[in-house]
């Protein structure tokens, strides 16, 4: 059985649906960090059968907004001095900037660097966001 030590300070993303860990790793740009990061895939889990886990050492300030769009089952644990200091809930973000692009090819955001779309969640039960510039709805897909 593979064993990975716990971290003293940092973030543990637990209960990631198996197969989504690598995508999350990429979306959070974890390859850009210069501290230890561990991605565990297909770890056995009582709740999920198997799961992925990501452990990020020495960083507590990573923007995790995108997680709500990818996998609402994820548990976020903030670790300090080897103890879980805080558990964070995952929510589907109501407003988003910079995580994805407007799908409308006629939108000004597709050609002008000054225009960065801010997206607002539409309360229609689907994960659809309205672009602040052209109002087109974009559905987030991993």
């Amino acid at each position, binding site marked *: 059985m593979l064993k990975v030590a716990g971290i003293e300070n940092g973030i543990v993303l637990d209960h990631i649906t198996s197969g989504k860990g690598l995508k999350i790793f990429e979306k959070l740009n974890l390859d850009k960090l210069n501290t230890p990061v561990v991605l565990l895939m297909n770890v056995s889990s009582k709740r999920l059968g198997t799961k992925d886990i990501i452990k990020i050492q020495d960083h507590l300030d990573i923007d995790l907004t995108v997680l709500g769009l990818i996998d609402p089952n994820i548990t976020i644990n903030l670790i300090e001095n080897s103890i879980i200091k805080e558990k964070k809930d995952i929510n589907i973000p109501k407003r988003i900037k910079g995580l994805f692009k407007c799908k409308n090819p006629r939108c*000004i955001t597709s050609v002008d660097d000054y225009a960065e779309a801010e997206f607002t969640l539409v309360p229609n039960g689907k994960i659809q966001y309205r672009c*602040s510039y052209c109002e087109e709805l974009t559905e987030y897909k991993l």
Partner: protein
Amino acid sequence: MNLLGRHLIDPNDFTLEEIQQIINLGLKIYHNPQNYTEICKGKILGTLFYEPSTRTRLSFESAMLKMGGTVLGFSDANTSSVKKGESIADTIRCMDDYADILVMRHPREGAPLLASQFSTVPLINGGDGGHQHPTQTLTDLITIQNYKKEIQNLKVAFCGDLLFGRTVHSLLKTLSRFPGISFVLISPEELRIPYHLKEEMIQNYQVEIIETTSLDEHLPHIDILYMTRIQKERFFNEEDYVKLKDSYILTRKKLENSKEDLLIMHPLPRVNEISYDVDEDPRAKYFQQAKLGVYVRMALMASLLGVDI
């Protein structure tokens, strides 16, 4: 209600009271234009037309000239620094020093909103792609007010290109906020209103909407018919355009069973969707609509400039 210094990018930027205030002022100017010939003396309108326009640009220019102001700008992006690759932000940063108020038309949706973020003077959206055209909406509303006396309790039909028609989108969004308005949306299946707009109208305003492909079936029951052109320039391929271009043609004969006080509108330009014999019908008001557009734009610019009236 103070409109001084404000931008008009989306019709929802103004409250219904503010819209009504502009319409009322527009009608006041329309009835006595001689009283307003100098109210904008010394003011300059800057026109930034990145896309061709006849009526909108010239009605803005006419409106400013009728109030004693002057006009500068470009009507073709190819003759400006845009051709050299200048960004919208940089163009605006200079233009707002040259003019007291700006109007912008752009093929990209959301471009006027971006421009307004850099403008220190009021900026008006003169149409952005297939998105919004708020001053056409003011033109449409002043026409409805003038001929129907009030903007409420009306069954309004829109016919033609409801997918790409920015005049349709702006007017639908705005009329949804007035009381007792219901809609009949007549179009080919391919040109129905955008999903995001329908969602917004239903969720925010709970308006009654009928979507149909039949014009004839609904003609006898509506109070306003808003015809639109199938816009060749919005199609990516000619084949799709040719297939749909003659979907609806309004003729005098078709109007036989419609209401006596039906109001027939069109944002113009017209191609063939209203046959010329309808022009003689007293219910056809699209040319008066274009005329009223000048007066409502006078009222809008005077309000945004905060001139003494």
